[in-house]
């Protein structure tokens, strides 16, 4: 044989061997694919043949499978083909089982091929319960409410047995007045004292006048004023420089342009863009610091923190006036802290600054203080052998912190003390507590 022919045969043989024996594509997770095929979970090893699914033409099939042979190599293609065939059979069997099963029945119902009654009957034959009926609220009997003047009379009387009566009325306030803020301003004798309410809806009260709406009409000044407030609440005594404020107001701009914008904005605010009563509280210090003057002002957030800390000083039983304060502050801080902030921040800065995180921390802190106060109130009731009341308070706390194991344990203890062992056992199971 001429040497050229031998060389040609060598080359062809090598090419054929490589072409037919070895795979030509990456096969990540080959073992997983083969296992999936064997179990009927996959349809193909990698992908369907090229012209699969189209009109059946022998020549096209031959080309499609030949391409797969070359792509995978004959040994792997043979294994894949055998497993794909097995997978197809298994899937047919599984499909047949499925079509007689529960899901297919429900699908028939959704496509209105069977009626509700037929669905229930056929589910019963399979040993399954029928679908649940529509959820309906429980019927409650109407009861006449206590007239307001009788309620006021009751609260203004000095109770014969002192402490217990005060706590009872304080307790009913907590259980009934969910989310209703107590009117702090009505208790403030000083008309020049700025009352800042941040929970539920922003209110900036001086006497009986609320300046919050006027402030919120101007998004940028409102952002600046509220950022200063948030900063004062989150980091009392901390110094905020003008460049930090400028960065917060216009993040990403060049420093000179930031300073100019801030200067212009502050100037506008101090010259009538916002109510004077609010503008005069912005302090521009000579050392480039800016702050909000919260002297001669009260805030519900500070009150919450103060009452929570005072509660910690005298642990154990709460004094009657403390109990009233705790109930009062819980009612007035039920809602979310500064709900207007997120939209305002999004509008003014696109939420690119760090202020949002500070507000979030304040919300978390407020929630922690409230949970602490609820726990203290519940402990107070438990100490006075009022386990039912303690349990209802702890239930509310647990709703707000559903994953708090400590609360769950206390609630279990309260239910045990109240004799509701079934409910206590349910809770232990739900929260995975040791018995």
């Amino acid at each position, binding site marked *: 044989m001429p040497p*050229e022919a031998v*060389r*040609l*045969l*060598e*080359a*062809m*043989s*090598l*090419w*054929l*061997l490589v*072409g*037919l*024996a070895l795979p030509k594509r990456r096969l990540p997770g080959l073992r997983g694919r083969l296992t999936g095929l064997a179990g009927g979970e*996959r*349809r193909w090893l*990698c*992908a*369907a043949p*090229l012209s*699969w*699914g189209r009109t059946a033409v022998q020549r096209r*099939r031959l080309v499609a*499978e030949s*391409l797969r042979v070359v792509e995978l190599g*004959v*040994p792997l293609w*043979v294994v894949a*083909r*055998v497993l*794909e065939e097995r997978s*197809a059979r298994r899937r047919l069997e*599984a499909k047949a089982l*499925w079509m007689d099963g529960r*899901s*297919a029945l*429900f699908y028939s119902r959704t496509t209105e091929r069977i009626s509700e009654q037929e669905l229930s009957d056929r589910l019963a034959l399979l040993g*399954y*319960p029928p*679908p*649940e009926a*529509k*959820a309906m*609220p*429980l019927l409650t009997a109407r009861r006449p409410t206590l007239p307001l003047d009788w309620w006021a009379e009751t609260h203004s009387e000095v109770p014969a047995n002192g402490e217990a009566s005060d706590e009872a009325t304080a307790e009913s306030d907590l259980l009934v007045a*969910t989310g*209703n803020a107590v009117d702090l301003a009505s208790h403030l004798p000083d008309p020049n004292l700025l009352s800042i309410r941040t929970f539920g809806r922003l209110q900036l009260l001086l006497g009986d006048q609320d300046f919050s709406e006027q402030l919120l009409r101007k998004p940028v000044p409102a952002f600046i004023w509220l950022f200063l407030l948030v900063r004062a609440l989150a980091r009392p005594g901390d110094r905020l420089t003008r460049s930090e404020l400028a960065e917060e107001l216009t993040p990403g701009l060049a420093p000179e342009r930031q300073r100019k914008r801030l200067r212009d904005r502050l100037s506008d605010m101090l010259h009538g863009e916002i109510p004077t009563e609010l503008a005069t509280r912005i302090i521009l210090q000579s050392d480039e610091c800016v702050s909000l003057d919260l002297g001669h002002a009260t805030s519900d957030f500070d009150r919450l923190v103060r009452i929570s800390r005072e509660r910690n000083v005298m642990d154990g039983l709460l004094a009657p006036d403390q109990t009233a304060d705790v109930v009062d502050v819980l009612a007035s801080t039920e*809602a*979310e802290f500064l*709900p207007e*902030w*997120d939209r305002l921040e*999004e509008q003014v800065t696109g939420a690119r600054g760090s202020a949002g995180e500070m507000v979030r921390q304040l919300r978390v802190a407020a929630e922690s203080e409230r949970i602490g106060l609820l726990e203290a109130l519940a402990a107070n009731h438990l100490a006075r052998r009022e386990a039912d009341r303690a349990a209802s308070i702890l239930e509310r706390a647990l*709703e*707000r912190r*559903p994953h708090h194991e400590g609360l769950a344990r206390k609630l279990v203890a309260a239910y045990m003390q109240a004799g509701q062992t079934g409910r206590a056992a349910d809770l232990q199971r*739900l*929260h*995975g507590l040791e018995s």
Partner: protein
Amino acid sequence: MLSASRRSPAIRIGTIAISLLGLAVLLSAALVGGGIGARVLALAWLPALVIAVLLATMAVAVGWAFPWPAADPYAPAEEPLLPQPILPACHRKSPMIVLHALEPGSGSSTLAFNLAVGATVQGSEQRRPLALLRAGELTDRLGLDPAPLSSFLAAHPVSVDDALVELAERHVCGCELLVIGDGDLNGQRLRLLLPVLRRFYDLIALDCPTDDRWLTDVAVEVADLTLLVAQPSTRSASQAAAWGARVWDRGIEGKIALGLNRVAGRTPFHDSLLREFRHQIWIPEDRVIAESDREGLPWVLRWESSARRVTETALEQLLPKTRTEAGDAA
């Protein structure tokens, strides 16, 4: 990047082209370079040719023996190998799963709807899940209206009573559906609704609006699991990266899961990003989903749906008391 449907022919054409090029190189080497020497080749040409012929014969025989696969209009052209879902079990009574779309069109609404239907149908015991869906195309197809809930919330700014449950529409499967209009739900309202909903429903799937950070924070706090629904796109990947950092900072990785929807092949989610999420679920590209959504039907009840199998596995992990029909049959 080529789509999955175009990738298969491209791979095959590429394979053939490389093979032909290899042949051309070998032939050139054989003819011009004076042959492929015996020192390089371990085989002589004859045994190699015989083996090649045997392989070709085997291929023809197998191809002849096995029939052409039956057509299935819903099977994908390319079938990627996806990891099994890893999700935490929700042991709490009436758990809430929050679905948060990382970009529009991720499929959070259809997932929330089908999770609720799946949870109704899969369990051996009676269940009544609730799906809270954002108003959109799917809710229009389902014939749902956000107005009743919107009016209810406006009329109940500080407290919510049980009359809320009358607003939910019962689906024929037994689960119930409520629609949230734009701007209707915020953090405070969610806290008010949740205790009432937990009294009546065994599972709450919330398709959370994404334009309110306060609401998102509250939802993550009160949920038993937050599922971040992403698409295999760079936008979703960057949003997921931001979430990964936030999750790590707050120490809540135990109740956050990444849900990668419409996976057809490779994704821009690198291993380093995926490692930030302990819990994950990968849902394949599935034509059945689009078709079912257009008709307002649940794809989780359709045999042909590849996403159905993944969702069933996910529900088994989330609600451990679930029994599947396959398990019952076994």
